[in-house]
């Protein structure tokens, strides 16, 4: 990504601070910002929703469901699709237009954690031959103050836990009426670390993201379900195993808030 002068100065300042064992907001290196999860934030139309505030970062996820055709190789299973929009109002660096690599990566990493952990019990979303439920997870970034992947991943699983099954009668989806809950099993939580200098910090703020050489996202349940390294820096094995341990530890704490 191209950097402006101000960002270079910030990078210097934050790197020096981290090298002195400090963060701009006084957090410990493995500490998350305050997390607030509001389920059912938009609950008149959407099947499920959740607003997540991670520090000042705000992400809203809505879940919509529809009836569609299954994949030919999995005729008895429902389908999920994840999409994200970095709304231009959320950051001066976001622009209107088709999704860019950053937003595609964001939704694919969130998708991978949910898909690979089997969070949605897709085998319970079969309706009849050639008809299954399709679960759309739409990520709306409202205010970008860093660590969008974690905020979006937490909001996505929270919205799924909030989601209800639309009523379905005589081959028609009845909008505005709902039956039971969407069947959700495991609860994957993504935890991201950034590497600044030789330090590993959890839940980077937006300024810390400018200063970071690389980041690593790890989505866990009781196991590791998804990972994504980003940025042009590199990680040692020790740093990676440290990030794995942090992901299990922070993931457990976050899961308690989500569930």
């Amino acid at each position: 990504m191209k950097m402006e002068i101000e960002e270079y100065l910030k990078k210097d300042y934050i790197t020096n601070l981290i090298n002195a064992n400090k963060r701009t907001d006084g957090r410990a290196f493995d500490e998350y910002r305050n997390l607030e999860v509001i389920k059912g934030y938009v609950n008149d139309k959407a099947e499920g929703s959740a607003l997540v505030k991670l520090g000042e970062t705000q992400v809203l996820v809505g879940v919509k469901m529809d009836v569609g055709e299954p994949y030919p190789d999995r005729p008895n299973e429902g389908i999920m699709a994840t999409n994200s929009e970095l709304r231009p109002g959320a950051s001066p660096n976001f622009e209107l237009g088709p999704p860019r690599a950053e937003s595609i990566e964001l939704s694919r990493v969130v998708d991978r954690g949910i898909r690979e952990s089997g969070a949605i019990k897709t085998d319970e979303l079969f309706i009849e031959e050639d008809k299954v439920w399709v679960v759309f997870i739409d990520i709306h970034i409202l205010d970008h103050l860093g660590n969008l992947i974690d905020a979006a991943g937490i909001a996505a699983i929270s919205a799924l836990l909030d989601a209800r099954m639309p009523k379905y009668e005589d081959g028609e989806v009845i909008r505005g009426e709902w039956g039971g809950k969407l069947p959700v099993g495991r609860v994957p939580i993504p935890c991201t670390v950034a590497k600044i200098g030789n330090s590993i910090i959890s839940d980077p703020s937006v300024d810390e993201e400018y200063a970071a050489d690389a980041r690593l996202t790890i989505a866990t349940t009781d196991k590791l379900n998804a990972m994504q390294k980003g940025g042009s820096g590199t990680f040692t094995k020790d740093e990676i195993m440290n990030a794995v341990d942090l992901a299990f530890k922070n993931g457990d704490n976050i899961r308690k808030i989500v569930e």
Partner: protein
Amino acid sequence: MDEKTRLVDENGIRLDGRKPDELREIEMKVGVLKQADGSAYVKWGKNIALASVYGPRECHPQWQRDSRKAVLRCTYNMAPFSVDDRKRPGPDRRSYEISKVTTEALESVVLVENYPNTAIDVFIEILQADAGTRCVGLTAASIALADAGIPMKDIVAACASGKADGEIILDLFKDEDNKGEADLPIAIVPRTGEIALMQLDGDLTREEFEKAFDMAVAGGLKVNEIQKETLLKEYKKE
């Protein structure tokens, strides 16, 4: 392949006859294309990838220019005929993501600071795909950059490991990738052993992850040996 076919048998032998930590056969060549400043061909099992490098050259569009360094741009593309069911031509979400992580992996070694205001373009074409194409493409891109004479701190090498039938295995081919329980592509900077690319999807315990990680790094080092042999064969003066 029917449902009951085991991917790894009781003797630890896989469907294609490999041992758990064995790579598929790999063949590499550099300087295979005339127009490009650097190029490479990699055949890795049934995967075939071509990489071509242009640059450092003038950077268009202008707004992408950076007065401090060259802009590195990798484009990963799969040919429509490279897979069983024809792939719709052109970029999709998967290829955008792979292009992004490949670019970032190569940025960790390319001395982009040497060429401010320019662009270095890397085009990866997957001509035949049988799982692990991002690793094959990145491995090819790496030696194509060397072939183009672009200064780098090291030659990045990539390799995937994963899990199938409960066993941790190296370098999954298509059937293993489809039916397996995890896939962990990794790219290494061989001299330091650091990780330039890593993705995971699947279901692994911490212990399984560590084993798979070590296996992929060891695989990457073997791939790097073939990269070096290939470059030496082309460029070593008698």
